[in-house]
Structures are given as C-alpha cells and as structure tokens.
C-alpha cells in the first residue's frame, strides 16, 4: 500500500466537506474492494474518507412493506434481519451468500452498489426490486443508477445514504458462484409483485447488471420455471473469461433464473 491520509467522517456533510478539501480522495465504506486494491498498489488515493462511523447510514427499517436499508449496513446485518426476512427473504438470502463471514461483517450495501462490480450480488436485487437509491444529493431509481461495469450515476463527491423499496409478493435469488472468487458468475434475482415480475441479472452481462425483460414478460403471464424453457439471453452480450465462456454464462443465467422462479412458485 502506498502512503495515504485517513479521515474519519462523523456525518454525511462532514464527509462531503472532507472530500472537497482532499485531492484525489476516495470514500471508503466496508473497504472490501478498495483496501485489497490499495494493498496490491493498484489504487492509490491520496486521502481515504471513512464513512463507517456515520450513525445515520446504518440500520434496516421495515414499515409494512416499505423497506429502507442504510447504506452503511453490513451484509451480515441484512442477512440476519428478522423483520426483513419476514417481508423480503430473497434479499436476506442474497446478503448471506456474499463473500465469506469476514466480508459480510465488513462490506456494506452502499459500498457494493456504489462500486457496481459486474459480479456483485446486490445490484441484481436493486434492479429487480425497483429500488430507489438515496444519496447525499438526490434520489435515483435503480434503473437509472447502474450505468455499466463499475459505473454508476454517482458524481465524484456523492454518497449513497440508503436504498429503499417496496417488498414484493415473492422474491428469490439464485447464484452460481465463481469457483475461485465466489463472486457471481451468474446471479439472478426474481421479484413478483402486483405490478408484474422483474428479473435482475448480475455476474454475466458484458455491461454489468441488467434486467432480463424477455423473461419478465414470460413470467408475468406464466410464473413457472417452464415458462423460461424457450428463452435465452444472447451469448454475445455475456462476459467471457477463463472460468466461463459467454455461452456457459448465457446457460447459467437461464438455469439460475429457473431455479429462482422454482424456489417461489
């Protein structure tokens, strides 16, 4: 790791002020991507502005079907929230299968979606749940928030403060992990509500997380795994690396989608 300057923010306002004052600053939340990258000397921010001690960013609130998760809430807390489990078990399952216990106790939902790793789990849920991303400046719908691989609508100094969504009638997440990293090679979040069905796919798409709209339409009229039999995602739009060809990933998207649907139908 190169030398860096550490700043601890006590509030969102203080954090944005620290960022304004810093040259080449970076926010750090759980640090589960940024810190290893810095240790490998692949990232070298001059200043780190630590968001972990901002009380306002923490906690899960469930009001009827309205869910709000503070951006600084670690995955383990989402996974273990009994209130959330009662209304939206799919997201608890997802959070409980991110990384390993160390990652789940350090990594946060805000950090995950702000980083928008193409293989991260949460973005698929945000899209499928039609979540709203609250930031230090505005509210952004998930559909507008995720732009591409590691790319979001966030401005340089903008901080994710929370996500909110209305719990669907049913939802499930099915993931095929990369054998080495355990990131998603294909992770599919399916949410069914009165408005219809939404399907968010992570780990597979060349442009990062995406909605599989063809599957959504098919499931809206017949919510069963069999409804997906005749469908497929275009392999040409899928990622390819040593762990999985684009054809293999296209196959996994379909298999994981069917398994998510089967789990709740």
């Amino acid at each position, binding site marked *: *790791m*190169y*030398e860096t300057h550490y700043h601890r923010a006590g509030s969102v306002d203080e954090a944005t002020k620290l960022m304004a004052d810093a040259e080449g600053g970076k926010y750090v939340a759980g640090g589960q991507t940024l810190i290893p990258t810095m240790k*490998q*000397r692949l990232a070298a921010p001059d200043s780190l502005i630590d968001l972990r001690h901002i009380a306002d960013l923490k906690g899960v609130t469930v009001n009827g079907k309205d869910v709000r998760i503070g951006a600084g809430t670690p995955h383990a807390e989402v996974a273990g929230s009994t209130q959330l489990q009662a209304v939206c078990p799919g997201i608890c399952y997802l959070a409980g299968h991110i990384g390993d216990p160390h990652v789940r106790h350090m990594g946060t939902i805000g950090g995950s979606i702000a980083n928008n790793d193409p293989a991260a789990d949460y973005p698929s849920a945000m899209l499928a749940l039609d979540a709203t991303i609250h930031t230090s400046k505005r509210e952004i719908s998930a559909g507008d928030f995720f732009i591409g691989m590691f790319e979001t609508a966030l401005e340089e100094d903008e901080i994710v403060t929370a996500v909110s969504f209305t719990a669907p009638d049913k939802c499930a997440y099915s993931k*095929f992990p990369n*054998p*080495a*990293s355990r990131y998603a090679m294909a992770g599919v979040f399916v949410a069914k509500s009165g408005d219809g069905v939404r399907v968010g796919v992570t780990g597979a798409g060349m442009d990062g997380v995406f909605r599989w709209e063809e599957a959504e339409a098919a499931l809206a009229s017949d919510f069963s795994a069999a409804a997906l039999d005749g469908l497929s995602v275009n392999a040409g739009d899928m990622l390819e690396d*040593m*762990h*999985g*060809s684009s054809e*293999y990933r296209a*196959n*996994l998207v379909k*298999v994981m989608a069917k398994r998510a649907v089967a789990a709740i139908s």
Partner: protein
Amino acid sequence: MGIEGIGARVARKEDKRFITGKGRYTDDMSVPGMKHAAFVRSPHAHAVIKGIDTSEAKKMPGVIGVLAGAEMKTDGIGSLICGWMIHSKDGSPMNMGDWRPLAETKVRYVGDAVAIVVADTKAQARDAAEAVKVDYEVLPAVTSAVDALKPGAPQIHDNAPGNQIYDWEIGDLDAVDKAIASAAHVTTLDIVNNRLVPNAMEPRAALGVYDEAEDHYTCWTTSQNPHVARLVMSAFYNVAPENKLRVIAPDVGGGFGSKIYIYPEEITCLWASKKTGVPVKWVADRTESFLTDAHGRDHVTTIKMAFDADNKITALKADTIANLGAYMSLFSSVVPTYLHAILYSGQYVIPAIHCNMRTAYTNTVPVDAYRGAGRPETTYALERVVETAARELGVSPAELRRKNFIREWPYQTPVILQYDSGDYEASLDAAMKAADYDGFPERKAEAESRGKKRGIGMSCYIEACGIAPSQAIGSLGAGVGLWESAEIRVNAVGTVEILTGSHSHGQGHETTFAQLVSDRFGVPIDSVSVVHGDTDKVQMGMGTYGSRSGPVGMSAVVKALDKVEKKAKMIAAHLLEADESDIVIENGQVKVAGTDKALGWHEVALNAYTAHNLPADMEPGLKETAFFDPANFSFPAGCHICEVEVDPDTGKVEIVQFVASDDFGNIINPMIVEGQVHGGLAQGIGQALLENASYDPETGQLLTASYMDYTMPRADDLPSYHVSNTVTPSPLNPLGIKGCGEAGAIGSPPALINAITDAIGNNNLNMPATPQRVWAAINAA
C-alpha cells in the same frame, strides 16, 4: 506399544503452539539492526536487460542499498543449479541454462529477480524497488512446453537449442511396439496433467545475517532441508564455506515440495547482508508466492495400453512432454524421469513398458517436485487408461485391474523398480466394500430420478517413497546421497533428545519421533524432545520430501536407539550383576528378566553420566549417532474410489463419497497418518476439480496469480472421507513402514476424473474438471 508408543493415536505435541498462534516462523525472527528487503522483478516473461538504473531508488527515504546482478557476479556468487544429471537417449547431458540469482542480461519469466532493495521498512523497500529503472527489450514469449519445442519458438537459453532440456527414454521400445502391433486391443488416451501452484500457508522468507567480527553467516529460511540448503549455498553458490554458514529452518508452515529448493532470495539476502552491513529480511507476499514458488506437474501425454485376447496387459507406452519452466530448479530433472517413468508398471504385471520424456524450457516459473512429484502424473495417466480400457473392452474396471494385479513380491518391473511387498487385491476389496461398489447401479438410478448424473471411478495406485539407496541414485545422476542421520541424546535424568536431519513443516515429527523413544524406553513423550532444522545443532541431514521422514528418517532414529539400548543394557547388567542378554526394558524399568531386580530408566542414565561404576573400558555418557541408507524405495499402494453426482444444467460436480484404502506398511500414529491422507486427498481433489496455473500464451503473464482466479480447495468443496488401512510391512526398513505423505495426492485425481467421465458418458475431459468444462463435455457427448 504403551499408551504413547508405536501405533498409539497420540495427539500432536506441536499443535499447542501452532493453534494458539505461538509458532515461530522465519518472519517472527528479529535480530538487532535488521532491515527489510524487496526484490525488483521482471514484469515481462522474456526480455533482454539493456540497462539497470538504481540512482533514483538509492535516493529514496530509508534506503540502505540497491544491489543488482553484475555486482553479485563480481563478488563470485555462483549460478543456481539442478542437482541431478539426466542424459538424453543420444548420450548427451541435459542442457542446463544459466540461472543467475539476480538476472543480469536477460529475464525469462514474469517474477524473475533483477535487483534487491534494502531499506529501513518493508514499505520503503517496496517504494524504492518501483523506482529502479530497468530498460527491457521485450522478446516474444512461450509458455507451453509443446509450443516451446516447435520450430521457430522463442529461444530461451542459448545452450538449449529448440528449448529442449533432454529427450530421455526408458524401457524396451521394440518390445513395446511389437506388443502393440500384435495386440487384441489397444487403448490410447491423450491427456494433460495440469500445472499447479503449491500454495504453502506460510510464504517463503529469508533472514540473512552476516557477522563481520566472526566472518560468519546465519540464514533463517523456510526450508524443508536446511542442511542441503547449506551444502548447496556453500559448495555451488559460493556464499560462504560450510563452517561459516549456519542455516536454520524454524517452524515452517507447509512446503509440499516447494521449500526443498534453494531459491535466489535466500542467497541474495545473505550476500546483501554482507554488502550493506545490516541483517536483511525478506518475506514473500502472496503474489510473489504465486509468481516465484516452483510450480508442479504440467505434463502433456499420449499413453497406449495393449491387451491380449484374455484382457491381460501386454504393453504400455507413454510419450510425454514436460514443462520445466524458465530454469532448471534443484530436483526438476529427476521428477519426470526417475520419480515418474519408473512407476509405469503400476500395480500390474506389464511385460513391456516404454516411456519417452522430452522436457522443455518455457517462459514460466520453474517447475519442480510438488506433493507426489512425478508419481501423480504416472498414476493419472495409467489409471485413466486402465479405466478407459475397461469401458472399451466392456468389462468391469475392478475385474480388469484384478486380472492384471501383481501377486508375488518382491516384484521386478521392466523399468528398474523392484517392489518390496504388497497386497493390492486386499486394498481393492476393502475399498469396494467400504464404497458399496456393488450397490452403485441403484444409487445411479435414484440420482437419475432427481435429474443428476451419478458416476463411480477408481484408482489403484502405487508410489515410491524414501528415494534410495544412495549408491544407486548416484549411478542414475543424483548429486547427493539420500540417507538420513539421527542422534539420540539421553540426558543424565533420563529425558531424551532426538536430533534428526528430517524436517517437520506440518508432518508432526515432534510427536511421532518421540513415540519411537517412548515405545523403546517407556518414557513419556513429554520427556522426549525433537531437535531439527538447525545446521549448528544437527550434524547432517537430507531433509523431508518424498515421504522419506518415516521410512528413512525414523529408521535412522531406530538405529541410534538400538545403540543406546545396547549400551543401557550393558550398564544395567553391570549394576545388577546380571548377564547382558537377560536384561529387558519394560515400562520405564531396566530389569533382569524374570526377577524383581530392576533399575529405573533414569537411574541407568544417571549412572552413565556419573560414571562412578561403569563396566571396564566403557566410555561415560549415553548418546549415539546413526545413519540409515535404505536398500530400496518403499512402495505404498492402495485403492481410491470416488462417487460423484453431476448437475447436468451447470456442470457442477459434487463428490458424494470418497473412499481411500491405503497400505502404508506399519503405522506409528494412525491419527497423524489419517491427517496426512486427508490433506493429500484435498490436494488431489484440488488438482482434479479446481486448481490450474494458467499463463497468458502471448504475454506470459500468470493469469491465476491470486485466489480470485486460482481455485484453492475449501471445506465446502470437499467431502467427508472414508479412510482405512491394509498392512503389508516393508521388509526394507526396521519399522516396516512405507510412507504416507503423498499417497492422497497421487491416488485421488484419476479416481475422481474416472467417476466424472463415467457419470457424463464422455471420456474427453481434462483436469481441472471445472463446471464449465464438465458442462461443455456433457453437451459434446
């Protein structure tokens, strides 16, 4: 046996310090004035060094010295060597390319060391290492051995035309070709033995200390064989004469072969300590471990097995190209030859065998022995071709093996080795029973009803441990002898110290070696200490690798114990006024047999040292030394059976059962043996399902240089094992033991791949059988 003697399931003494974080590893060592090193490493797989500019780096904060290869050469530090001469079939010696500890003119793999920076802190050393400017002229690279041997491939060493190191053979080619030509059936298989990264938990490290006042060097290092390290650093690398060089390998966190070799870093740290006047410590980070620890395996093989009309094997022919990387590591030449090809008889009577082995330089890190060292490659090729043949012939894989088993010992194979003892059918029967082999069809049908493809596969392996004897291996090209030494010191109060040239880096010697003493003299193992890993304390040793600590290291201990026992009995006979032949040692008492006349063990020891009343002409003291040079290898063997379920939608393989029935000869501590088998199986399953070192063929960059891409086995990848033992004692060592350290990694990969190919109905599958590969193979079937 006593509660702590031979055969007792004694908990490991050393685990208290390991599991409480109190082990003392090289990185825990600290000496006054110690500074920290970082290496400047090549980012290119193949490049000419046109210049090295250290001027900026030398001005960086905290920097004490920046040293490069030219200066090292001027100081007379020698090149790294391979210690085993192999001759090609045309009689020419192998082409050993020059390996400088710090490259001066050319770099040949990503990670090749170019310079060392010594600074006050590790971070400062790393910062300054980045400031060393190396002017490279990048050359085309080649990473596969098959490609490296093709005409027009980039030339890596000037003295190895076409990148060939040797073209070696063993066996009777004419006889094999005739048998194949006249065979009733020939099975042919093209297979790849995938390249592996050793991944010891503790990264390599070295602390070099030069003491100007004494003109003496001390090197703490992560070594499996500190005496060999001292010998090689002294005799070949010219670091210091042996009497002025002390090598200490303290607690070492795993080796698996990768810490046998003497690497550039420990030599450079010692030299740099003298040059800079400060003690120099280097500890690899995990990326350096991936890039610079010697890798394992990497064979490409065509194997043919011929049968007569009665399904008896008539011949075996193997043709292999092996990748040895950019330089010849210490034992690299012997791994594909005398640790590999001479095992091709397996457990079978095969009248004619031939193996041709071509080895090549590539722009990859050197390849050398890794748990199993050559025998996993043999076993994988052999046990896959046998299983394939059974399928082609339409006979049971178990029965085809049974029909061809060797049934008399000693058995002379056509390829040098003579097997000591065994009962291969006993292992096969035990494994089949444990696996309920006969019940498999029902389980397969049940799995099918759940949409899963279930398969079963087996592997009947043999391996060779405790490489020996010294005279024979010398005639085959070895630069060293492979005996072991031991010293038993009985202290005046009866406690005992075992000084051994074996080195424990996870094997549990502090317990098992002590059990030998407890068994012999009845003292508790808590009163027995094992001293190892320090050239100033132990007179000489050849270290631990090739499962040799049991058959060779412990045998030396037994020989020394024999001498101690003899002297103790002479003392007791003198004191008890009895005949020496009537003295027995029982439960810590030295007694006249059949009487109540006895001395405590401690009383005999005390008398040896007070020397007030010893037999005439007897020297005081109770301390003996022995060397043991075995007459032959020992030959552990066994049967592994694996059953899998494959998810056809994703290609994911689940191991539903894994049975290992092994014959390791006599066993000292069954719990430790089980631990060794479990660990070996984890590594074998890792190779078969998960692990693969992959280089970019164009750039020579290691693509799997972290755990994000290199799949290490984790608990949830592995099943619960069913392990058991059959016993045929080895007649070649006093304990009748055969060695157990590598068998798990040797026997398991073919059993697993045979199971998967059985499940999916496609035999065209290479390791690692990742979900993607299995899915593709299902869809290609």
